[in-house]
């Protein structure tokens, strides 16, 4: 879906993230450079502790790099204040977590609408439309504990899309699902990507990585392979 005339939606230059773990100094990411074009579907793979999730957190403005530059949706994240990062996260990025992160006291529809509490938008019609899109319109009034794992993850995907982000980030989205539910979720990602949404997913799952058009391999905090498939 990427076009060569467009600017990258994610652009990282010499991205590094270091932190201290007790007396130990950890280089979670070292000089990673890449860019993602709008509409790409990218899988970040690699062994545990390689730095995949750290990279995803940086892309999602959940964390800040120790050095290097990162542009998200045309915005240079360097030096942004918390308020500006929050706005960027709210407007440009949607998150999907391995453990869904649904709020147990809210029903499916309310969970999908949760981000609008902070954006101030009235999106009830859009939330219903998204639930329709993920095949959960009939479950709108159900609580999370009444849903299967696949349904919970689809609810989380609808929630991630409620603010119409340009980038969808997913951290091990099939990690807690059985293979059938995982396949459904991946199919959903594929479908969303085919409509122009940029998708970046971190995964251990080979079949999940295979659905992406691009595979970036991280090892020991470094980008060791970047293959368009």
């Amino acid at each position, binding site marked *: 879906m990427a076009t060569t005339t467009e600017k990258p939606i994610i652009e990282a230059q010499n991205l590094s993230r270091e932190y201290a773990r007790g007396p130990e100094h950890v280089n979670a990411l070292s000089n990673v450079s890449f860019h993602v074009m709008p509409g790409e579907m990218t899988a970040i793979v690699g062994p545990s502790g390689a730095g995949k*999730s750290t990279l*995803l*957190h940086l892309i*999602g*403005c*959940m*964390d800040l790099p120790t050095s290097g530059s990162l542009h998200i949706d045309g915005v240079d994240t360097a030096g942004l204040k*918390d*308020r500006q990062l*929050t*706005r960027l*996260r*709210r*407007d440009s990025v949607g*998150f999907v*977590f*391995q*453990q869904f*992160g649904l*709020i*147990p*006291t*809210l029903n499916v529809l309310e969970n999908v609408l*949760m*981000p609008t*509490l*902070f*954006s101030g938008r009235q999106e009830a019609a859009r939330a219903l439309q998204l639930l329709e899109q993920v095949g959960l319109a009939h479950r709108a009034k159900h609580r999370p504990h009444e849903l299967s794992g696949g349904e919970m993850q689809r609810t989380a995907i609808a*929630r*991630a899309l409620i*603010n119409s982000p340009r980038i969808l980030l997913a*951290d091990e989205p099939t990690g807690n699902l059985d293979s059938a539910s995982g396949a459904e979720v991946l199919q959903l990602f594929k479908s969303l990507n085919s409509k122009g949404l940029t998708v970046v997913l971190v995964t251990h799952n080979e079949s999940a990585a295979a659905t992406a058009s691009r595979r970036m391999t991280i090892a020991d905090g470094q980008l060791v392979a970047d293959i368009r498939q």
Partner: protein
Amino acid sequence: MIRFAIKNLCRRPIRTALTAGGVAAAVCVLASLLAFGEGYRKSLDIELKRMGIQMMLVPPGCPYDAAARVLKGKALDVSLPESALAAVRLDSAVAQAAPLLMAAIPRPSEGRTDMWVGIDETLLPLKPWWKFAGKSGWFTNPSSVIMGNEAAVTEMRRAGDSLYSPETKREFHISGILERSGTSDDSMFFVPIQTAQEMFHQEGRITAVGIRLKDPSQAATAAVRFQQIPGAQVVTMGEMMGTFTTLVDSVRTLMVGIAGLALVVSGLTVFNTMLAMVMERTRELGVMRAAGAGRGHLLKLLFTESLLLTGFGSGLGLLIAVLFSSTAEHFARMAVPLAPDGRLMDLSPAIALQCAGAGILVGAVAGIYPACRAAALQPIAAMRESAQ
């Protein structure tokens, strides 16, 4: 946001209920104490004004105790010579002076003590609220008795009936029954003063003299003169009220202090509950941050939860205070000697607002740190939690 906050509070209903219950108990106690102070002061003020008596001549001893006992229809162990009454009546500042002789007749078999009061017609201007029921009226002979409304109901007597007093072995004719006045007069037996002196072997003695002045502003100078009457002392109603209210205010201040402490303890409970809520929901709060919640949003959410929790507790406390005000009044009446007859608990809107405000303020203060802690949460915490 409010609906969301309510749902969060309902997540652990028992913990929320216990926390709100703590606030409710503290607010209830605070409201009841303030209402008691207000009610006591107002009732005392009304009762003293209704007495029509501006000062009272009483036997030596604690003048306030003596005056209060007389006002409340309780007997005194000491008495005044009748000459004191004559001396008062001679004073040019006096508009009305009425003798009172009070005696108690215990009725252990019936679990009560009857108060008999010797009076004469000079008391009538000092009891302007007295109204006789039906065609009953003033004493017709030395064996007449006027009964307070409750006394008549208790004895099941009507005007014109006879009343036998076994303790004094006297037969009385009921000449009058007073309409209910809401004062201690309702439960008394009034007889001519000479009859009372004979009944209780107090010839030439009286318990007190109720005095009304021609000009109330002359009370201070008149009091100095009355103080010179041998074997007597004077107490003004203003002094009495001041003494009572000071006494009650002192006790109330102590109790309000204790209620305030209870409110602080309930605030600590709210603090603990809110902090526990933040700890339990770290991951969720992180997810919210990831979904676009700013620090201000989380601060607002947790602060709203804290205010709702204490607001609910305060409302509940006030409701309990209102619903159980009669019970509280009953116990207060048992605990406070010589309590006025009017309403002792006066939970005014101003007091309710003060107490609700205090409860909510405690919630606001207790919610600050947990809310700040939630707001300071780094979004990355959500990822870490979800990865665990």
